[in-house]
């Protein structure tokens, strides 16, 4: 049987399915006669819960880092929250009910408050209130530490997993998480990504699969329960290939991006959010070759302020600790829309009002971003790059605006560094005038996705055109050569940040063209490094 869900981390897991029993179902309402004794039971259990949370905090600190561990400090504060404590005590006194029941009801009430808030993050916090309540209840009812007593690795299944449940689990015994509920923001999802194990959310499984054999396919978002022999063999092979590949790649960490005959190239990562930096460092990238700044605009209901942007850029620059961070200015429009920009409907959005065109028409938006980038430059090694350039005139206009921004910052005494400036080469026009453009900037980065689409006049979103689409079309490769030659002639360094940059069948050709940098998704850093180290140019 196959059940589908949403994958939060790719990969394949094969093993026994273990469905975690729900603990909050067991709470019964009982009448008590000694309210004071019952309150003491509650407060003792509360103290014991806090002790457990202290231990969990220390454990989590070591295993998943301070950011993820702090939730257990928050849980301790919640247990000390007077609204919470008084609500439980009042119920015990006024309704003469047992502590378990009072805690369960109080927990549900607070969880309900959070669940009804209009903010996804706060909604997800209702799980935290339930979690602390379940902890107290489990101590009150004498169930020590949950019921997970497996001694072989399993695929763990539950409605949703509370942070304290996930951290108590012995890591080496978890192959994968599968939950009925939860969001990409849930603790389970975050933990799955930290642990690098394939995991699914939103899977509607039935309780009776407990103990059966299962396969989690994190690439396709499916759970296969009781697979037939053929499917199982198939997945065992896939998993083996995955494992071998991963193990092999780990050997390339810390090594140089250098060919057998000594040619070096910079290998950077593409990121789309501040949180991706961890993945960049984990995969040993030499820098960030493309920091898409759109997330700041797309995740917001209004134009992000200079301060918000400054913090995001500064954080990335600081976390990268002196390594290069190339921030691409706003590339909104086409398929990336934010309502407040009010861009209107266009016949041909890919050829429409987007990216630098918006910035040059609405310089106040552009300046806010440039000020934030320049201010952040003080805290690391930041470069800036501009998308969708078609002419020298545009670049000159950008430099004029940059001059104004710098003058403003000087007047306000903000420190900033001499930021390296570059442009994306992603229109055939930019390729044809790249000799002139190279005199204006310090680097080029080729955006192969758009460049290919514009060169071949093929809409990538239209599946009917797949037969005509050739990512290795000689027209595109000739353009890449031309860009590299023109860039170098004027002293620019040249890179590729589109999908083609990670295509290892072309790595050798890019090196021969003289490319100085490839920027790829974090997970492709090591595969591309492996390819580079296997190349001999002479």
């Amino acid at each position, binding site marked *: 049987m196959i059940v589908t869900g949403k994958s939060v981390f790719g990969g394949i897991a094969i093993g026994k399915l273990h469905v975690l029993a729900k603990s909050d179902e067991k709470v019964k309402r009982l009448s008590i006669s000694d309210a004071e004794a019952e309150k003491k039971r509650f407060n003792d259990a509360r103290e014991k819960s806090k002790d457990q949370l202290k231990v969990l905090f220390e454990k989590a600190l070591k295993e998943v880092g301070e*950011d993820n561990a*702090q*939730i257990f*400090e*928050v849980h301790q*504060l*919640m247990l000390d*929250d*007077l*609204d*919470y404590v008084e609500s439980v005590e009042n119920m015990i006194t006024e309704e003469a009910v047992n502590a378990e029941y009072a805690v369960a009801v109080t927990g549900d009430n*607070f969880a309900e*408050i*959070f669940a009804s*808030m*209009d*903010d996804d*993050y*706060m909604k997800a*916090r209702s799980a*935290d*209130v339930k979690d602390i309540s379940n902890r107290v209840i489990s101590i009150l009812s004498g169930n020590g530490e949950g019921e997970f007593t497996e001694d072989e690795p399993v695929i763990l299944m539950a409605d949703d997993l509370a942070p304290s449940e996930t951290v108590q689990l012995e890591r080496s015994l978890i192959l994968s998480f599968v939950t009925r509920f939860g969001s990409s923001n849930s603790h389970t999802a975050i933990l799955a990504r930290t642990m690098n194990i394939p995991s699914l959310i939103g899977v509607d499984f039935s309780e009776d699969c407990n103990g059966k054999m299962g396969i989690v396919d994190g690439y396709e978002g499916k759970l296969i329960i009781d697979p037939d022999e053929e499917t199982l063999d198939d997945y065992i092979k896939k998993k083996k290939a995955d494992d071998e590949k991963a193990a092999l790649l780990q050997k390339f960490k810390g090594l140089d991006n250098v060919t057998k005959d000594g040619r070096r190239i910079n290998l950077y990562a593409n990121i789309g959010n501040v949180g991706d930096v961890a993945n960049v460092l984990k995969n040993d990238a030499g820098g960030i070759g493309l920091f898409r700044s759109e997330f*700041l605009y797309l*995740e*917001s209901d*209004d134009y*992000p*302020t200079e*301060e*918000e942007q400054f*913090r*995001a850029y500064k954080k990335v620059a600081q976390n990268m600790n002196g390594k290069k961070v190339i921030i691409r200015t706003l590339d909104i429009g086409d398929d990336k829309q934010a309502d407040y920009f009010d861009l209107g409907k266009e016949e041909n959005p890919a050829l429409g009002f987007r990216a630098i065109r918006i910035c040059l028409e609405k310089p106040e938006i552009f300046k806010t971003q440039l000020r934030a980038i320049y201010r952040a430059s003080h805290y690391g090694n930041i470069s800036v790059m501009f998308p969708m350039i078609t002419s020298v005139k545009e670049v000159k206009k950008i430099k004029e605006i940059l001059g104004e921004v710098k003058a403003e910052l000087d007047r306000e005494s903000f420190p900033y560094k001499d930021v390296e400036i570059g442009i994306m080469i992603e229109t055939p026009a930019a390729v044809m005038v790249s000799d002139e453009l190279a005199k204006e900037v310090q680097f080029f980065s080729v955006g192969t996705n758009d460049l290919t689409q514009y060169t071949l006049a093929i809409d990538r979103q239209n599946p009917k055109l797949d037969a005509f689409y050739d990512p290795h079309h000689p027209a595109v490769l000739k353009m890449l050569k031309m860009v590299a030659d023109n860039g170098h002639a004027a002293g620019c360094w040249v890179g590729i940040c589109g999908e083609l940059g990670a295509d290892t069948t072309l790595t050798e050709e890019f090196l021969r063209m003289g490319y100085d940098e490839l920027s790829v998704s974090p997970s492709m850093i090591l595969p591309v490094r492996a390819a580079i180290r296997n190349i001999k140019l002479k």
Partner: protein
Amino acid sequence: MTEFNYTIKDPAGIHARPAGLFVKEAAAFDGTVTIGKNGKDVDAKRILGVMSLGVKSGEQITVKVDGAGEKEVADKLKAFLEANL
């Protein structure tokens, strides 16, 4: 009583971790501390109340401190907000 306004700058608003740290700061003070949004004040020493205000980025909060040494406490809390939120 000493009070001040502050506009939250963190893109995520007052989320669980800084809320916890703020509550800890407030709890270290013997007097009363409240935090409010749109006229609704809650006890700043109670994390569930603080979180349930649901303060988002760009929204203004009012912090009121009452008791001995309130000025210093208000300054401390303000510095905390500026550094963390």
